[in-house]
């Protein structure tokens, strides 16, 4: 029997696949440094706070990237197939890109429901959970609640606590180390919270407009009143009519600060600011949004400093 090219090629595929299985297989728990992959940099930062040098952490999305629209690139599969733990934001934030990556990874440990899959939203206080009829007429609404919940330090503490419990479950030998790291993080967070509260105290009740609904937890925590959005509906680009209505509202309410995430175009916010005399402030929703924002503490340091400066400049 004469072998034809397709037969040779198909045979090669399977020979290669079968010859190198050990190189592809992820190590078992505890066999080497524990690998954690997170959906976003914020989850990575919190995991790092707890896991320290006993784990390695990699994030799929970058901090300056819109976490709703991440491309499910095959290079992410290289990370996921080796992961011992996957930490996701949940609440359908990653619904457009993460599920196929998990399925394609060939890693049983991080499949939904497996011990190595952790949805951090279960630990956090979730706001804006819709009630009643939910339709797409409301825009790209998240039926399970607003997924930007890590922007409240209290939620950060709770998420870190949940991650600590999961790491302890998967790496019980390092339980004391994770506990110590968590307590240290919690204490440092308490100290930082006092500073942040002090800085934001003069601006309690200030009304702001934001581009997207990224800030409900942040606003609640620091006493801000978000009264309008540049987007007419979540995920819907600004329309001229909505922009005019927003300008009128801002003038009426004397709103002087527009908060924009770094991945949105500044053209419309700037034109609104010109009309109303407001200031556009590019706040970071995630760790890594700027080079110097390298951890969870620096995220709030950065945002609160910018915001306080904007409020002072625009009383």
């Amino acid at each position, binding site marked *: 029997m004469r072998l034809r090219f397709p037969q040779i090629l198909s045979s090669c595929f399977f020979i290669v696949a079968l010859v190198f299985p050990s190189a592809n297989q992820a190590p078992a728990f505890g066999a080497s440094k524990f690998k954690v992959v997170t959906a976003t940099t914020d989850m990575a930062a919190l995991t790092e706070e707890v896991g320290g040098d006993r784990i390695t952490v990699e994030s799929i999305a970058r901090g300056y990237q819109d976490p709703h629209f991440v491309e499910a690139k095959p290079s992410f*599969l290289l990370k996921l197939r080796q992961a011992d733990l996957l930490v996701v934001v949940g609440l359908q934030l990653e619904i457009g890109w993460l599920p196929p990556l998990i399925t394609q990874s060939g890693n049983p440990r991080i499949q939904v429901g497996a011990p190595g899959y952790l949805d951090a939203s279960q630990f956090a206080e979730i706001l804006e959970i819709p009630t009643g009829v939910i339709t797409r007429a409301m825009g790209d609404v998240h039926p399970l609640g607003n997924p930007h919940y890590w922007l409240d330090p209290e939620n950060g503490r709770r998420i870190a606590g949940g991650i600590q419990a999961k790491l302890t*479950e998967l790496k019980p030998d390092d339980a004391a180390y994770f506990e110590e790291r968590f307590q240290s993080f919690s204490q440092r967070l308490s100290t930082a919270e006092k500073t942040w509260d002090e800085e934001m105290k003069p601006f309690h009740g200030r009304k702001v407009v934001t581009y997207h609904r990224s800030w409900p937890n942040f606003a609640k925590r620091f006493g801000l009143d978000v009264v309008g959005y540049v987007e007419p509906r979540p995920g819907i680009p600004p329309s001229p009519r909505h922009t005019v209505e927003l300008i009128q509202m801002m003038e009426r309410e004397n709103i002087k600060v527009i908060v924009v995430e770094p*991945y949105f175009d500044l053209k419309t916010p700037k034109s609104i600011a010109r009309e109303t005399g407001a200031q556009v402030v590019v706040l970071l929703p995630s760790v890594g949004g700027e080079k110097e924002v390298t951890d969870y503490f620096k995220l709030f340091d950065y945002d609160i400093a910018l915001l306080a400066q904007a409020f002072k400049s625009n009383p």
Partner: protein
Amino acid sequence: MRCVNIFACLLILVPGLVWAQTKDDVQEQLRALEERVHVLESEVQTLKAAQAAPTPPTQAPPPPTELPPGQAPAAPTQLPPGAPLPPSRPLPVYGGASAAAKALNPDVSVIGDFIGAGGRNTIRPLPALEMHESEVGLQAIIDPYARGDFFFTFGEQGVDLEEGYITFTSLPGGFVARVGKMRSSFGVVNTLHNHVLPWIDRPVVSEDLVGGEDGIDDAGVSVNRILPVPKGIFLEATGQVFRGDSGDVFSHTRKSDISTVGRLRAYRDLTESTNLDLGLSFARGHNDLGSAYRTQLYDLDTTLRWKPLRRAIYHNFLMRSELIWSEREEPSAVQRAFGFYTASDYRLNRRWTVGGRYDRSGRARNAALTDTGFSGVLTYWPSEFSQLRGQYRFTRYAEGRDANEFLFQFLFVLGAHGAHPF
């Protein structure tokens, strides 16, 4: 007279006795109520004292339980600082007590694809207006080891199972297997559903050599695996075995007339924003002339993508080419045809995308006949869930006839349609 006196006395005495009796009852009831108030007050004080007592320091939090997707946590109240929320929170109930059971239902979506065509095409005419396809998707995780995906297409002529398969996600050795009916992993365009194509139609080479819209879509088994390669290169091998019945491409007259498909895909991030995708595929099966005659297809595809992460929703660029060779055995000779398309898209802003495509292909049954064409495409996105597209298409068919057409399309998504693989 005596009776009258007695009656008068009764009239005076009875109300007095009744009043006296009522007064005693009321006083007793008041006493009982006062006692009850005292008891309640003491209970309230006890509760207040318990609430005001300091919370014991948080020890290692209890192991949390993950909520599966689709399960909704409710907003918590009175959260003690530093403690994770209770692991099990109730599902929001929107439609009554039975709504919790619906959480296990599959995600359901419908995608409407309405197409219109103007202009003249005498070789492959399209209807002026057509509800081209309604794709119903049902997707869910089956158990800890597998997930299921079904896509039914309802056209004006009937219903078809476009895909319906189980994916085993927890196999050892990093293998991922699928069993069911599926679009084969031959090339790129063949794997894509209509609604994710960057054009309204499919390239001429797909029509001429790979079975057009249906393509190689068959019942079978698929196994794929990521292969270990250094330097951040992603390499994936896929092997598939099908019944051997894929529209115009493969037919089976005996059970042994199976078809096979193999694909090797290499991918690398060149920079944070740019990546290169290369693929090599083959497909082999028996054609409609009988078991003695085979058709073999080979595909080479390249894709270059650019998407700046900070402005990913506003700008991106994609350039893709796919070259396909066909060898079709016939009684007289082997028809060896070749075709390709090369296309690119550029996203101008959040709502507008412009693109173009060049086509050239021989025909599988007569390689001497070659069709060529080009298209210009403009797409408008009102939101993520709807899309309007216009396409000017020029085709010069091998018969010597030219077709100038304007196609337009409305695409709209209902429900929760899961993301497709990259």
